């Protein structure tokens, strides 16, 4: 029975010692140890989170870059297209204006030809009139009485009149 009968002295010493141990360890051992373990865990967690954040940021940056690149490419394409259009437009305008110019030149040439022709005809008319008058004058001067002679004379003069 001695084995299962708790001794009072031992209970006393145990209570005293254990209370002291509990107090000392709680205050001077467990508190700093647990605190620093928690701090370290926190710092590890923070570091991991920061790394994760950095990775995400980098991914975001990368996708941003990609987007920018894409945008730049699109812009370049658009610019090229625009330039091409502009070139074509310029060419077509130039062509058109050249055509117009040519047409205008031709038209003005035709016009001047027409006017020259008219002028020439007018001149011809005047010359014919003059010649006719001259001829009539000559006929009148010779005072012809003979009809046959008259006719031969007219014919002779007519032969000498060549239209140019």
């Amino acid at each position, binding site marked *: 029975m001695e084995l299962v009968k708790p001794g009072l002295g031992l209970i006393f010493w145990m209570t005293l010692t254990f209370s002291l141990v509990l107090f*000392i360890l709680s205050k001077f051992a*467990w508190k700093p140890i*647990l605190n620093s373990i928690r701090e370290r865990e926190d710092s590890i967690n923070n570091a991991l989170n920061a790394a994760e954040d950095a990775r995400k940021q980098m991914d975001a940056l990368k996708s941003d870059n990609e987007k920018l690149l894409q945008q730049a490419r699109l812009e370049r394409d658009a610019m090229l297209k625009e330039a091409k259009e502009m070139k074509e437009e310029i060419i077509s305008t130039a062509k058109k204006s050249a055509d117009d110019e040519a047409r205008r030149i031709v038209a003005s040439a035709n016009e001047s030809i027409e006017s020259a022709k008219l002028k020439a005809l007018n001149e011809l008319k005047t010359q014919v009139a003059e010649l006719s008058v001259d001829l009539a004058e000559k006929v009148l001067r010779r005072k012809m009485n003979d009809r046959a002679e008259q006719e031969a004379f007219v014919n002779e003069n007519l032969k000498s009149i060549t239209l140019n």
Partner: protein
Amino acid sequence: MQLSNKKIFRYLIPTFLVILYVGYASLNVYGHEGHADSTQIQGVEANHDAHADHNQEASAHADATHAEANHDGAAHEEGKVDAGKLIMEHIADAHDWHIATIGESHISIPLPVIIKDDSGLKIFSSSRFGHGHEVYEGYKLHEGKIVAVNADGTENHEASFIDFSITKNVAAMFIAVFLLLWIMLGVAKHYTVNKNKAPKGLNNLIESLIIFIRDEVAKPSIGPKYEKFLPYLLTIFFFIFFNNILGLVPFFPGGANVTGNIAITLVLALFTFFITSFNGNKSYWGHIFMPPGVPKGLWILLVPIEIIGMLNKPIVLMIRLFANITAGHIIILGFFSLIFIFGAMNAYLGFGVSILSVAFTTFMSFLELLVAFLQAYVFTLLSSLYFGSAVEEHHHEEHH
């Protein structure tokens, strides 16, 4: 996973101990049949019968009475070994720390005796008792216990005094506590010096145990309020663990049966009980004194059961640790005693048995190392479960 492991150990170890006990008892009985004429051996046999019944109290009792009979009677018969007495002496508390016996001379450290009686406090060395042969200041040692003595030399069992002596267990506990404080404060200092650095050496070992207690024991069983109880849980875990391990060291300063002493486990269990009770919230006490969801008529039946259940928890804690550690010590000592029992019959037989004994003791020591950890773990785990039940919030309360 964890739970199933625990269950296995809970059943495996006692079963194993029982088998070993039976084996040990039958071996001893068998070994002594040839020497039936010896009075001591009959006593040993009586022990074995008691052991075989797995009744430690009865065994202790048988040992005590038997040892007494021996001591008063034929004293030490040449070449005979009384295993029961030897084992009981080793696992019981003592007023001196026996280190070795060489030939006839005992080497032991006398420990201070502190007695409080009507005439005041008496402090003197236990060597004054002359190993139980002398009377000093009206007291003498009887079977390792201090008893008051009348003027005529007879024992006075009515005398009222309190024995506050630094016994072997107290001294061993002091040593364990010193080691515990030394290591833990050293580790703590390391943490404050090398803040936020990776731990190394001893810190790694201690830290893994601390994190184990925090993450595997306290957090799951107590819940969000675990931080309040963590210092206590860590203290009991390491206190029990250190004392268990030191108890397995076969020579000074180990070998004392500190955690196998009921007074020690009683105090530990009371600490757990009081912490549980002081932290019990409304729903904890409500479940005991006003069990919810039960007709009021049944309260007469249920409340006493709940109260017994509440008181039962620390008692179970106390007995589990005490019995496990004591049983381990008894088994290991029993195997060693076998060598001397057989050696007393025949030197060659003793030598032969020693091989077997050492093999078994080595195996048992490994098992005891496991038990040393396991019992510290179980005590801590159950304490935290009790704390958990005390601080748990029951949200279904509103329905009742």
